[in-house]
């Protein structure tokens, strides 16, 4: 048994997610990613269960493992009790730990997620918050979104919200002590370490790619690159 397979086994999601696959395809049949990417969860499970070190490395560096949307629809149906979605989560975690994620266009996007949703957690105590959804980065939110941001105090007041208010209510300000506790939890449980790992490998990759990289924020070439780049090879049917 290979070393990488052992590392995967340390993740309870992997242990729970992989029993034995008989390649029935029930997962792929309803997988939203299998439809719009060159992706087949059945093949991922089959590859992983072969325990071949080289094939697992290839997966960890691949675009493929980043196609899943973690809707977990695969879990409902698998006749062998596997959860391809959990296997993907374990592969992604390991890919980041080992720094392989920057080898793929889709993997490199982890930095963009860390710099947006990840930072929101520490700054606001929310993954997403009205004021953190920038209309320029989210044009699909439409004109109503710009309107809400321009009038957020009035909008929230009428709807009973507490935007940045003290106490309870929708989008209240999370007390500093609670934010401190979150931060401490991240430190104790390896959350901070994962953030730092993503930053470290992204910085290396940015220099390899010759792109400007700032240690924070979204206003640098590497961030813009990973946030927007699509080389068009992810869905053969689109070309």
């Amino acid at each position, binding site marked *: 048994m290979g070393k990488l397979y052992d590392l995967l086994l340390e993740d309870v999601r992997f242990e729970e997610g992989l029993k034995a696959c008989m390649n029935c395809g029930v997962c792929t049949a309803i997988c939203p990613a299998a*439809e*719009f990417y060159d992706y087949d969860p059945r093949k991922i499970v089959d590859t992983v269960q072969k325990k071949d070190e080289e094939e697992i490395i290839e997966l960890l560096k691949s675009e493929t493992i980043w196609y899943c949307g973690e809707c977990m629809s695969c879990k409902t149906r698998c006749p062998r009790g596997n959860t391809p979605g959990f296997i993907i989560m374990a592969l992604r975690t390991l890919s980041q730990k080992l720094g392989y994620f920057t080898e793929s266009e889709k993997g490199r996007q982890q930095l963009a997620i860390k710099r947006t949703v990840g930072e929101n957690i520490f700054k606001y105590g929310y993954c997403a918050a009205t004021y953190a959804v920038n209309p320029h980065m989210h044009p699909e939110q439409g004109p109503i979104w710009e309107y809400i941001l321009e009038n957020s105090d009035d909008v929230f007041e009428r709807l009973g919200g507490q935007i940045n208010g003290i106490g309870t209510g929708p989008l209240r300000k999370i007390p500093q002590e609670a934010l401190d506790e979150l931060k401490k939890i991240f430190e104790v449980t390896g959350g901070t370490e994962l953030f730092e790992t993503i930053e470290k490998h992204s910085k290396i990759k940015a220099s390899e790619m010759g792109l400007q990289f700032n240690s924070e924020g979204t206003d640098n070439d590497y961030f813009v690159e990973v946030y927007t780049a*699509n080389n068009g090879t992810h*869905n053969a*049917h689109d070309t």
Partner: protein
Amino acid sequence: MGKFGYTISKGRQIDYESNDRSVAEYIYDNEPSFRLCIECGCCSATCTTGNLTKFSLRELQILIKRGENEHVQQNLKKCMLCGKCILVCPRGVNTRNVVILAKQAYQKSDNYAV
């Protein structure tokens, strides 16, 4: 890409209803052994092209049956018509003739450009 930076993708799902399967019908009529395939993959295993490229004769036959004409047309020309596949087929499918008939069918049809 327009103002959003992405577009609506074309799905990979085989939509059986929207596909034209007349090529498969043409082959069934002229090479009935085409029906006997059990998708075992012996043809692909022995196929020279298949060993050197991503070409799969097993998959190609399935996609002919499903009417995935774009994929089939792109791949048909990769077959070198050596006929080794016929030797190994456990069901006696004349796989070489299947390829020849598919090419014929596309040539005959106005709907397809080969």
